Structures are given as C-alpha cells and as structure tokens.
C-alpha cells in the first residue's frame, strides 16, 4: 500500500537532498532558497555540505548571540517558557565598513563616526521587523555605575535599486537613546527601529548608515559620579541586530499557544483545579490568556 503522501514527500525530499548538489538541475537556479521549497533549517543543514566555507563572523558578535541564546533557550535548545517577546528570529549583521573609522575622542565619550553598509539579503519576506538596534562593543571602565545619555545622529542613505536612478536621498534622523553603564559593561544598544522599519518592509537588501553618537554622563547623576572623563573605548564598528517575527509555518509562534499546548476548552473556569505545583503554570496560562484577550 502506498505510504501516506506526507511520508512520501519527506522520503522524496530526503532522497533529493542527499543527491542534489548546488548547481545541479534540481538545485534552485538562482541558488537562493525559496521559503516554500525547503524549511529554512533544512535548507541551512543541506546547503552547508556543498557550499564554500562560510565567512566566520566577528567573535564579539558571536559572543553576544551566544549570550542571547542562553537567555532564550535551555541547553537542549528548548525555547524558555518565560520569554515574553513577540519575535522568534534574531539576526545580527556585521557591516562592510565604507571607510577607515577615525578614532573616537574618548575623553568626551564621542563614538567615532561610522559609515556602514549592511547586507540584509538573509531576511526573508515572511520575517516581519519588531525591533532593530545598533550594537556597539564597548569597554567602559567607569569607576562607578553611572547613567550615560547618548545622542546619535544617524543618516540613512538608501542604496536599493529604487535609488539607482536618482542620487541617494539621505534621510537625516536624530535618535535619542539612553542606557545605563555598569562595571565592565560590554555592549551598548542604540535603537534604530524607525530607520529600519520602512526598509525591511520594502525588502531592501542593503542598508547604508552613517553618522555618529556622543555620550555624556547624565546630569542628574550624583556630583561624585561626575568626576573624571568618560573613558569609552569603542572596540569595533557596530553590528546591526534585527528582531523579527517569522510568520512561516515552520517557525515557532509560542505566544499564540498555551505553554502546555492544551486545546483551549470553552469555559476556562470549568477547567479542573491545576495540579499541585502547577500554580506557576496556571498563573502563566492566566497571563497568556489575558494577553491573548
């Protein structure tokens, strides 16, 4: 008897995948993966074999993403139930720096001007932007914990095809962002969502950002904390992080389902009393069902 169609599909795909090599007739002509053809992870798993070795990312960026992974998932890779964010995808892009960066003036906390080009072609059409930040790797040796106010003036130069015909129209935008430095604070995030939203929505594959940031100590700080210059050393040009909601069927949409995936019964109140020790789970269910409402 014929195996069920789904099984046949998986078997065929697995057989295809084991033979097909990039460039063969079965391999997508443009080499780009069409989300409908292969689940993204399977695509990553399969195209790794025949492909040239991958560019190794910046080690500090990798360290940041490993830290993020530990915050969001267990050692076995299960997404943690306490995550209350709406994104199931986080992408970190390291820039092609357009020009050698002049060193920043550290005594006043001026971060060096940056002229950065990011290639976003890994962002698929089904991934919707939730938030975007520029990640500066800093090594602040501020002696006491002090709030630092950063004002950034970033200009977006569109480099998509649309601007090929007319000169790129810079879109000046001043971003006000505030973050707290503590001892040995390694990273500083600057929210650039308003800049990136229109570009990701229009599937721009390249983003050209330039501008600089000035960080000064917050005036409300205790006088003692204001002694001495703000000694900031920028270790590397900033990375761009996109927090996305992948709307494809293969992606996990945890916030839509109850933590233990039970079919929502009509009368939530009629549900049997939660088992002892499941108080947290029941509370969690309460919170998530309130959120859903």
């Amino acid at each position: 008897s014929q195996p069920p169609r789904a099984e046949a599909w998986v078997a065929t795909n697995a057989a295809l995948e084991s033979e097909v090599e990039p460039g063969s007739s079965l391999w997508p002509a443009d080499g780009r993966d069409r989300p409908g053809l292969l689940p993204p992870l399977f695509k990553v798993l399969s195209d790794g074999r025949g492909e040239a070795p991958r560019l190794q990312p910046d080690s500090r960026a990798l360290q940041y993403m490993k830290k993020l992974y530990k915050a969001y998932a267990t050692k076995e890779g299960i997404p943690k139930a306490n995550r209350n964010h709406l994104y199931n995808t986080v992408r970190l892009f390291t820039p092609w720096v357009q020009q050698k960066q002049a060193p920043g003036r550290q005594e006043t906390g001026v971060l060096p001007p940056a002229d950065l080009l990011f290639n976003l072609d890994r962002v698929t059409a089904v991934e919707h932007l939730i938030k975007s930040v520029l990640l500066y790797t800093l090594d602040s040796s501020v002696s006491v914990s002090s709030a630092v106010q950063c004002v950034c003036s970033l200009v977006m130069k569109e480099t998509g095809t649309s601007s090929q015909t007319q000169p790129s129209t810079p879109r000046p935008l001043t971003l006000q962002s505030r973050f707290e430095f503590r001892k040995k604070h390694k990273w500083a995030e600057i929210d650039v969502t308003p800049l990136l939203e229109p570009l990701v929505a229009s599937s721009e594959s390249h983003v050209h950002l330039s501008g600089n940031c000035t960080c000064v100590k917050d005036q409300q700080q205790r006088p003692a904390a204001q002694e001495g210059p703000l000694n900031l050393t920028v270790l590397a040009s900033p990375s761009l992080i996109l927090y996305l909601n992948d709307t494809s069927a293969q992606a996990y949409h945890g916030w839509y389902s109850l933590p233990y995936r039970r079919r929502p019964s009509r009368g939530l109140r009629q549900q049997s009393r939660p088992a002892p020790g499941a108080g947290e789970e029941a509370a969690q269910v309460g919170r998530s069902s309130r959120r859903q409402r």
Partner: protein
Amino acid sequence: GQDAVGSQLKQPLVPAALNLSEYFKQFVFPQDECELHDFRLSFSQLKWDNWIVAPHRYNPRYCKGDCPRAVGHRYGSPVHTVVQNIIYEKLDSSVPRPSCVPARYSPLSVLTIEPGGSIAYKEYEDMIATKCTCR
C-alpha cells in the same frame, strides 16, 4: 454449579507449564509497545557544527513499537484505529496495522552562522517529538 465444578475437576490436568504461559500471554503488555525513544545526536557528528553554533546536542526522539488492540484510552487514538486493527486481524491482513507515530512536538531554538557571515537565532516549530499515538 457443583456438578459443573465436579466435571471440571474430573478433566485431565494438562502440564501446567504449557497452558499457564499460553493462558497468561494474552494479558501481558507487549514488550515492544508503541512508545517514545531517545536519539541523541550532536551536530559535530554530522559535521554541521561549523555553522550550527547551538544547541550542541539535539534529541529529536522518535516513536517505535506495536500498537496493541486497546489503543483507544492508552494512545488517544480515534475509533478508526480500532477498526483498522480489527480489519487487519479478522478480515484482510494486507491492510496494515495502525502505525506508531508522533502526536505532539516541541520547538527547538537554533543559532546558525549564515553564508554571508551574519548570525541568526531562530525558533522552529515541531522539532522534537514529545508524545506518541497509534494511527
């Protein structure tokens, strides 16, 4: 019922070893009943660890085993499964017995290095089997 008991007692005693084990066979749970099994793999075994950064170990688990006749209450199977079992046993053994397959999954978070050198954290649905059923 005394005479019935009496007649029973008069019957020749067959060797206990043979009949008792046969008799009890119909009650013992099948040893290889449909259930969840572990399969721990590490991406380095598949030589995929140069772009799958995390997790280091992945246990997709799988379902294996026979589906006993009384599948209803144990596996949450629909009545169709019981019917299919009866067809296989009583009418036509070319109809396959019900299969032991996953009924529920949990997601997996993966950290990968993409071809262009960017880094992606993604959460995929249905990557680890957490419950089996007979269908």
